[in-house]
């Protein structure tokens, strides 16, 4: 029962062993720490970089162009915003050269709120990331998906942004959602692959034998089938929406919850089929609500499914304010919460045209 951060670490290990990963690097990514969330402990290609995000993204691009297979970490996505020009260049490398080059790299970075991260450890990036052409954007909500999406990200010949919902990094998989090959006992897994406290210089991890289980980029996952309303969400909000949906069962409201998993290119087929069936749409994410990626989903829905809609499609997202405040009240008022989501689900499902 791996946590998401362990799943990422195992995927990176498989990447190193079998998929050609040459460099896992970034601030505090190498020994002794192995990442501020431990995502890179014990990896043989992990190394520490200078404190310089432009250098990290730039070097990742250079490594990629030289045929290496880098996974670069931005320690928190909150610190990616001085590199948007470089991200755009990476996304445009194939296109600008008319296919002469490709630029195969992975940027992984923790996103979102939920750990009392205050203004600069709570940012979302889905809005801006999906606005940068040439990137594939994935965002897992379970350890298993994190594992499989990371393998796909590594294998992809394009730049892939791996957004890790930081509040889920230490969450364990649900039963039945194990990664094949991981030990049944979570304490055993921890002993095998978590670095010990104190001196780690003699430590080497013992990796369980996990397979090349790719979760394809571009495939959504229907977490919960439902009749009355389609909820499209991803990352940390998947579990929150699912719980809200379950709350409503007793009221006879049957909500379908779709975990997008890949934000770009996204699984429109699955979304459309669901929306046409339920005739109602709610999009939920944490990013600030103006020029939000959920608005794209809604735009496309009204453009293509207008006449099936029985209620106005709706977005629940972060408040359009400059940050997420530290105090609980502030964070809760800034990011969609379960109660508010359930209320909106109910309203939309019961809405009478």
């Amino acid at each position, binding site marked *: 029962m791996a946590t998401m951060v362990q799943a990422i670490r195992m995927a990176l290990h498989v990447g190193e062993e079998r998929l050609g990963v040459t460099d896992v690097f970034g601030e505090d990514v190498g020994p002794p720490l192995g990442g501020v969330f431990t995502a890179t402990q014990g990896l043989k290609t992990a190394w520490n970089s200078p404190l310089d995000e432009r250098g990290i993204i730039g070097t990742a691009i250079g490594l990629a162009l030289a045929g290496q297979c880098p996974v670069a970490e931005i320690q928190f996505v909150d610190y990616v915003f001085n590199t948007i020009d470089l991200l755009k260049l990476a996304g445009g490398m194939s296109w600008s050269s008319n296919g002469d080059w490709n630029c195969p790299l992975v940027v992984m970075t923790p996103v979102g709120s939920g750990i009392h991260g205050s203004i600069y450890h709570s940012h979302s990036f889905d809005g801006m990331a999906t606005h940068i052409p040439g990137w594939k954007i994935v965002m897992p909500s379970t350890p298993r998906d994190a594992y499989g999406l990371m393998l796909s990200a590594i294998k992809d010949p394009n730049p892939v942004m791996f957004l890790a919902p930081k509040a889920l990094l230490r969450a364990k998989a649900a039963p039945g959602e194990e990664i094949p090959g991981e030990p049944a006992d979570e304490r055993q897994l921890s002993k095998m692959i978590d670095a010990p406290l104190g001196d780690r210089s003699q430590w080497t991890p013992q990796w369980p034998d996990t397979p090349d289980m790719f979760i394809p980029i571009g495939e959504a996952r229907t977490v919960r089938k439902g009749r009355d309303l389609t909820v499209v969400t991803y990352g940390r909000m998947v579990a929150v929406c699912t719980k809200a949906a379950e709350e409503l069962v007793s009221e006879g409201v049957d909500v379908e919850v779709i975990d997008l998993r890949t934000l770009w290119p996204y699984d429109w087929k699955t979304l459309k089929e669901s929306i046409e069936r339920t005739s109602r749409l709610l999009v939920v994410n944490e990013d600030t609500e103006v020029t939000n990626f959920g608005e794209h989903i809604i735009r496309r829905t009204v453009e293509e499914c207008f006449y099936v809609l029985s209620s106005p499609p709706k977005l629940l997202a972060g408040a359009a304010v400059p940050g997420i405040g530290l105090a609980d009240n502030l964070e809760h008022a*800034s990011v969609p919460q379960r109660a508010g989501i359930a209320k909106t689900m109910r309203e939309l499902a019961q809405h009478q045209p």
Partner: protein
Amino acid sequence: MSTSSYQPAPRSDAEALDDTTEKSGNERNVTSADAALAPELLVRMHDLMLKARLLEERLIRMQKQGDGYFWIGGPGEEAFNVPLGMLVDRGEGVFHDYLHLHYRSSATLLAMGADPVDALRQMKNVASDPYSGGRNFAGHPSIRKWNVVPVSSPIEVQYSMAPGTAYAQKRAGGHGITIVTGGDAGTAEGDFPTCLVWTSRPGHELPVLIIVTNNQWGISTAGATQHGEKRISDRGKAFGIKCMTIDGNDPENSYHQIKRAMDYIRTERKPVLMEAMVSRLYGHSSSSGANYVQEEADCLMTFEKKLEERGILTRAHIDELRAKYTQELLDASKRVREEAQPEGSTIYDHVFAETNIVGLAAAKSRATANGRGN
């Protein structure tokens, strides 16, 4: 000339401000001042250093007890940060100093006269937190009336902003300077050289004290593994900027060197790059445990020993002081615990400013300067 209380030294100390880092070869060589300071000044300095240390220890305790989500601060930097704060020309507007600080600068604020309870308030994210209203982490102050620009979490950005306040000061005349400070690892960001380029433009040199507090770490990463520079301060040389690397663990030396640099900047209106070697006594932050690090030099301990040896303070007096401040801070933290949390509905407050507060202050200080026949 200005509303500032600063009186320039009778002669410019510019010549005295040699590049003191040149003498050694490979090892990090630091200067040490010889002149002793007046006993009252030393006592005051010690008082502030002790209070600053105890404040950080209280903050750490609060976080560990669940009275706060995150701690970051400056225990180990008091011997540099306190003299810095004492030497600041405090006030609002271009005729006073602007401070673009690091998240380890609490001792500087204390030395400037900040009330320690405000740091506790920010730790507990209560509505009365005067720095951010419960929005920001501990160690992220903002004090407009003293020109303390909001400290932000992104590393190094303050170095890109510092030329702006200094430009305004140079144009205004007077002796106000801009002080910018940050850590060693952060100098790898482009903002640090931006500050070097923008403060040394020919004919437009800017009055900035560019400080790097070098604790030789960036979180878990040893500086020596990432930095090919022998001394970070060497990076200023190509720009003709006066550079110095000083022992920031010795408060007397810090006081002398900062004063010397400031005198130069206040009168010559040109930048100085000062690297201060300091300790990181409780690790990076609460995320790394915030436990006392035995291996690092403790400037407070060393200074107290020195003061005892010189007969300026007794151990008994120090112990008494420590007990007194400890109790005061504990009491204050209990009071803060009872203060109200901000309301959720306040998240929409201050997204936009209604009036131009900073512009009013500027107009006021211009008027005062003019009133003085300038």
